[in-house]
C-alpha cells in the first residue's frame, strides 16, 4: 500500500484527532486553541482537493477499514460525489470557523472540539459505504450539531434546539427501523452488497423492502428538510449563532447526499422491487418544498428567519434536481449544491453583521437606525441576496438554468418550470423587500451603544464565501463538468458495486 492509499480515511480521522487534541488543549491559551482548530480545518482543503484529483478519472477509492473485506467490514468509498461534498464542506468550514474566531467561539464551552467533531461526522457520512455506519455518523454529526446549535444559549435558541433534538431523535429511531428491516431481509449492511441483494429480492418480499427503503427515505427527508419535515429548520437556523448557522448550510445537504447516494445504489438499477422507488415521491415533494420554503421567505419577519426559509427553498431545488433523476438533472443539482451552501452561509454571516449593526432591533424587518458601515455591508448583502435568489450572473442562476434545461426531458417539465420560475420571482420580491427595509428605510435616530460596526474580520468570511460563489460562476465550465461526471458516475452504480465487492470476489480476505 502506498502512502496515498490512506487518503480516503484522512479527511475523517483528521478532525477527530484535532478534536481530541483540542480537548487536551482546553486549558491552553486561546490563540493556541484557535490556531490548532483553524489549521486543522485548513488542512482538510488539500485533502479534499487530493480526493477530487484522485476521483476525477472516475475511479472509486475503496478503503477497507480494519482490512476487512466488504461486505463484512466497513468500507469507505470515495468517488466524485464524495469528493465534491468533502470539498464543499472543507471550504465552508474554513470560513464559518474564521467568523467564529471573532469571539463567538468563547460564548460557550468546547466550541472548537464540537466544531471538529462536527466535521468528523460530516466527512464520515460522505465517505462511508455502509448503511449502519452512515447511521453512526449521522448521530455524530447530529450530536455535534446539537452542541453547536445551543452554543451560547438564550431562550429562542434553546427552544429551537429542543425541537431540533427531539425531532431528530424520532428520525434516528426511524433510521434504525429501516436499516433493521433491510438487514432482516437482505442480511447485509454494505450499500453495494445491499444493492445487489435487494435487486434480487423475490416478489413475495417486495412491499417489505419497499417499505423499509421508503422509511429510510423519510429519515433522509427529515435531515434534508423536505416537506412536510422541514419545520425544525427555520427556527433552528434562525436562532443559532451565525457561524453555526453558516456551517449548518451543509447539514441539509447531508440528507440530500444520502438520498442520492443510497437510492442511486439500491434503486438505481432497472431490476428489483426498488427500481425507480422515489420517482413518485421525491420530485413532487421537492417542488412543494421549494414553493413553501419560498413562501416562508416571503412571510418572514426577520432576516435570519428569511434566510432559513431560503435554505428550505434551496433544499427544494436541490432535491427537485435529484428527484428528476436524469443525469443532467442530477448534474444540475450537484453544481447547485455548493453554490447554495456558500451563498446561504454568506447570507447568514451578513445577516449577523446586520443584526449587530442595528442594535436592539436586530434583524427584524422594521424600520431601524442606519447601520454603521452600511455601504460595504449593503454591498455584501446585495451580492449574497443575488446569489441566494438565483439571479444572474452568479452560480445560482447557472444552476437553475441547468435544472430547467434538464427538466425539459422529464415528465415534470411544466411543474418544474412553473415552480422554479415563480419561486425565483418570489425570492426576488422577498429579498428586495428585506434589503429595502433594512438598508433604505432607516430613521435618523441611532441606537448608540447597542449598535456594533462590522469589522473587516466580520465581513471577510462572508466576502470569502461570496468569492467562492464567484469562483463557481467564473469556472462554471469545469465545475459543471465535474458535477456532470459525478452524476454520470451515479447513473452507473454497477461500477461502484464492482469496486466495492470486486475484491471480495477476488478472494482477498484479509
Amino acid at each position, binding site marked *: 500500500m502506498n502512502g496515498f492509499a490512506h487518503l480516503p480515511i484522512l479527511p475523517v480521522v483528521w478532525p477527530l484527532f484535532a478534536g481530541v487534541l483540542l480537548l487536551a488543549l482546553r486549558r491552553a491559551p486561546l490563540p493556541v486553541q484557535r490556531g490548532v482548530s483553524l489549521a486543522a480545518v485548513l488542512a482538510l482543503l488539500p485533502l479534499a482537493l487530493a480526493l477530487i484529483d484522485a476521483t476525477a478519472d472516475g475511479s472509486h477509492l475503496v478503503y477497507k477499514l480494519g482490512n476487512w473485506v466488504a461486505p463484512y467490514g466497513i468500507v469507505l468509498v470515495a468517488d466524485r460525489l464524495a469528493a465534491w461534498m468533502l470539498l464543499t464542506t472543507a471550504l465552508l468550514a474554513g470560513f464559518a470557523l474564521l467568523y467564529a474566531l471573532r469571539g463567538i467561539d468563547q460564548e460557550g464551552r468546547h466550541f472548537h472540539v464540537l466544531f471538529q467533531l462536527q466535521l468528523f461526522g460530516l466527512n464520515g457520512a460522505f465517505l462511508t459505504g455502509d448503511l*449502519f455506519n452512515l447511521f*453512526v455518523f449521522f*448521530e455524530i454529526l447530529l*450530536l455535534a450539531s*446539537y452542541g453547536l446549535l*445551543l452554543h451560547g*444559549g*438564550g*431562550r429562542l435558541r*434553546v*427552544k429551537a*434546539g*429542543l*425541537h431540533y*433534538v*427531539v425531532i431528530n*431523535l*424520532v428520525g*434516528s*429511531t426511524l433510521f*434504525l*427501523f429501516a*436499516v*433493521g*428491516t433491510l*438487514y*432482516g431481509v437482505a442480511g447485509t*449492511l454494505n450499500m453495494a452488497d445491499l444493492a445487489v441483494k435487494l435487486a434480487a429480492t423475490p416478489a413475495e418480499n417486495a412491499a417489505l423492502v419497499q417499505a423499509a427503503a421508503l422509511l429510510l427515505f423519510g429519515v433522509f427527508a427529515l435531515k434534508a428538510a423536505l416537506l412536510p419535515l422541514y419545520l425544525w429548520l427555520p427556527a433552528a437556523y434562525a436562532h443559532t449563532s451565525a457561524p453555526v448557522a453558516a456551517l449548518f448550510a451543509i447539514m441539509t445537504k447531508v440528507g440530500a447526499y444520502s438520498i442520492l447516494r443510497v437510492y442511486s445504489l439500491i434503486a438505481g438499477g432497472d431490476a428489483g422491487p426498488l427500481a425507480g422507488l422515489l420517482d413518485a415521491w421525491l420530485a413532487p415533494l421537492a417542488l412543494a418544498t421549494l414553493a413553501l420554503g419560498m413562501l416562508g421567505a416571503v412571510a418572514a419577519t426577520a432576516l435570519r428567519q428569511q434566510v432559513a426559509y431560503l435554505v428550505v427553498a434551496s433544499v427544494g431545488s436541490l432535491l427537485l434536481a435529484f428527484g428528476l433523476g436524469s443525469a443532467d438533472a442530477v448534474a444540475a443539482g450537484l453544481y447547485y449544491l455548493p453554490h447554495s451552501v456558500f451563498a446561504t452561509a454568506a447570507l447568514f454571516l451578513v445577516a449577523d453583521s446586520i443584526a449587530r449593526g442595528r442594535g436592539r432591533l436586530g434583524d427584524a424587518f422594521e424600520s431601524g437606525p442606519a447601520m454603521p458601515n452600511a455601504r460595504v455591508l449593503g454591498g455584501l448583502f446585495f451580492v449574497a441576496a443575488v446569489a441566494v435568489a438565483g439571479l444572474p450572473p452568479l452560480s445560482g442562476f447557472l444552476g437553475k438554468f441547468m435544472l430547467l434545461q434538464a427538466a425539459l426531458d422529464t415528465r415534470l417539465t411544466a411543474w418544474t418550470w412553473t415552480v422554479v420560475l415563480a419561486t425565483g420571482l418570489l425570492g426576488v420580491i422577498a429579498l428586495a423587500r428585506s434589503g429595502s427595509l433594512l438598508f433604505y428605510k432607516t430613521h435618523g435616530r441611532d441606537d448608540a451603544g447597542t449598535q456594533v460596526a462590522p469589522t473587516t474580520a466580520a465581513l471577510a468570511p462572508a466576502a470569502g464565501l461570496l468569492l467562492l460563489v464567484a469562483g463557481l460562476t467564473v469556472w462554471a465550465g469545469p465545475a459543471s463538468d465535474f458535477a456532470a461526471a459525478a452524476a454520470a458516475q451515479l447513473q452507473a452504480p454497477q461500477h461502484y458495486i464492482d469496486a466495492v465487492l470486486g475484491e471480495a470476489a477476488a478472494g482477498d480476505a484479509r
Partner: protein
Amino acid sequence: MEALIALVIGVLTAGGVFLALRGQTFPVVLGLTLLSYAVNLFLFVMGRLAIGVPPVISAAAEGYTDPLPQALVLTAIVISFGMTAFVIVLALKARAELGNDHVDGLAHEEDR
C-alpha cells in the same frame, strides 16, 4: 414466540409515540426512551429469535445466533443513551430558559 415479540415491539412503539406527542418535556423523554427500547428490540430480532445459542465461540456450543444485529444494537443502545442524556439535560435547560416545562415554552393554557 415471534408474534409475541412483534406485539411487544408494537406496544413499546405505540407507548413511545403517544408519549413523544405530549406537550411537556418529561413525558417526551419517557416516550423517546420507550421508542429506543422498541427499536433496539426490533433491530435485535432482525437476526431472528434463537434460544440458548449465544454467539460466543466454544466447543460445546450447539450453534450460534446472528451476532451482527447484536453488535448493531449495542452501538444503538450506547448512542441512544447519549442522546437521551442530552435531551434530558436540554429539557432542564429549556425549563430554565423558557420558564416552564412545555416543549414550546408555552403556558399551560396556550398549548398548541
